């Protein structure tokens, strides 16, 4: 199988890889680049644990061919913090207890981040629709909605 060259930026870092074109973006992120924050939890693009951002959009990285991210900027949960300082959404998750087992959290954080960048003051319904693609079995989602609401109100500033 003829390998394909892939140049892309992940969390601000340029990468050049040679991969089989059938490789999914989530496999590049986890197996080739070793960023294990992004998880996988289903076989049918249903659970959202693999959510990352491509440019300004939240996408399910198990439903994107890695080669399609050529020249794009991919952001994963590991990229939210800036030299050790947590992003507002991360601080809100900590303070509101918006996670328990934490397996869906990286994907959930990226859905929230994308939604807030697109719509800084979302209504509770818009927040719930924004994370409708992310399944969480532990929290019952309300703590996540509270965290998003608090960030939208500006309660968690960038340091």
């Amino acid at each position, binding site marked *: *199988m*003829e390998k*394909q060259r892939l140049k892309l930026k992940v969390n601000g870092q340029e990468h050049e890889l040679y991969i*089989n*074109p*059938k490789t*999914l973006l989530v496999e590049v992120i986890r197996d080739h680049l070793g960023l294990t924050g992004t998880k996988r939890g289903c*076989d*049918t*693009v249903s659970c*959202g644990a693999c*959510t990352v951002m*491509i440019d300004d*959009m*939240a*996408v*399910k990285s*198990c*439903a*994107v*061919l890695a*080669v*399609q991210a050529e020249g794009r900027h991919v952001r994963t949960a590991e990229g939210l913090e800036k030299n050790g300082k947590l992003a507002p959404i991360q601080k809100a998750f900590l303070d509101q207890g918006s996670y328990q087992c934490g397996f869906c959290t990286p994907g959930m954080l990226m*859905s929230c981040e*994308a*939604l807030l960048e697109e719509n800084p003051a979302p209504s509770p319904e818009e927040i719930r*629709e*924004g994370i*409708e*693609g*992310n399944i969480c079995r532990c929290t019952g989602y309300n703590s996540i909605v509270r965290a998003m609401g608090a960030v939208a109100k500006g309660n968690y500033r960038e340091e």
Partner: protein
Amino acid sequence: MIHDFRYLKPGTLQEALSMLAEWRDECKIICGGQSLLIVMRQGLVVTDTLVDIKGLNELSYITYDDGEGLRMGATTTHRAVEKSGLLKEKYPILVAVEKKLASIQVRNWGSIAGNLAHGDSSGDLAPVLIALGGKIKLGSVKGTRVVPLEEFYTGLFETALTKDEMVVEVQVPPVQPRTAVAYKKFNLIESDQGIVGVAAAMTVDASDTCKDVRIVLGNSGVTPIRARSAEKVLLGRKSGDRLLEEAGEAAAGEADPVSDIHASEEYRRHLIRVLTERMVRQAWEKAIPLE
């Protein structure tokens, strides 16, 4: 596990069409891949060659003029439709349908042509576009042809696309006065696929009588189907409870739903009857302009 394939990335539409002509039945097209990658991962779809048209920005556009009506390029994403101010004003039903389609992540990356070409009869876009009188433009090296969307679907997950053709554009006639469209899918969770779906487009004349009506049923047969006998019940008549019930019963009768773990056939017919009544009523009320 996805089987290996030769990956081709055309820079222009012409390049893509010549690739399709060259590889014919050994190749498949991928754009957003939100449906295709699932079936490929399950090994249900295997292909030697994959033509990736995600990058063809020349096919990503939403334009409208009163003469030609609405034109949407094949690689336009669901989110582009959802967030389009033009559509919010001219075709609000399309924005409403997209908001409840799958998830934000799938809508960010998935394309409208990918959704339509996948041929899943429980898809949301096809019934609504058919109700709007939508057409679909197919292109190949030999040229293009425009097919009413209704005739685009030939069987379960089967379309009129020939081996060297691809969808290039979706067309919708100009907005008609005193016309409105309503759509509802029945599901347990808001953005889930519909157990059944009903779209209704109503045009009324000056006396609010039904001048033209299209009722389209989703997941009620191997393809989206027009409920023609229900439409006949309404044509030329004035709205009324008894009439709407009659239309609902007609639609339930002519549908051909399956029985599966989510709903029995009788229950699907029951839902079609209830939703047809509601959607026709809703479209009728919206079609009558507020004085």
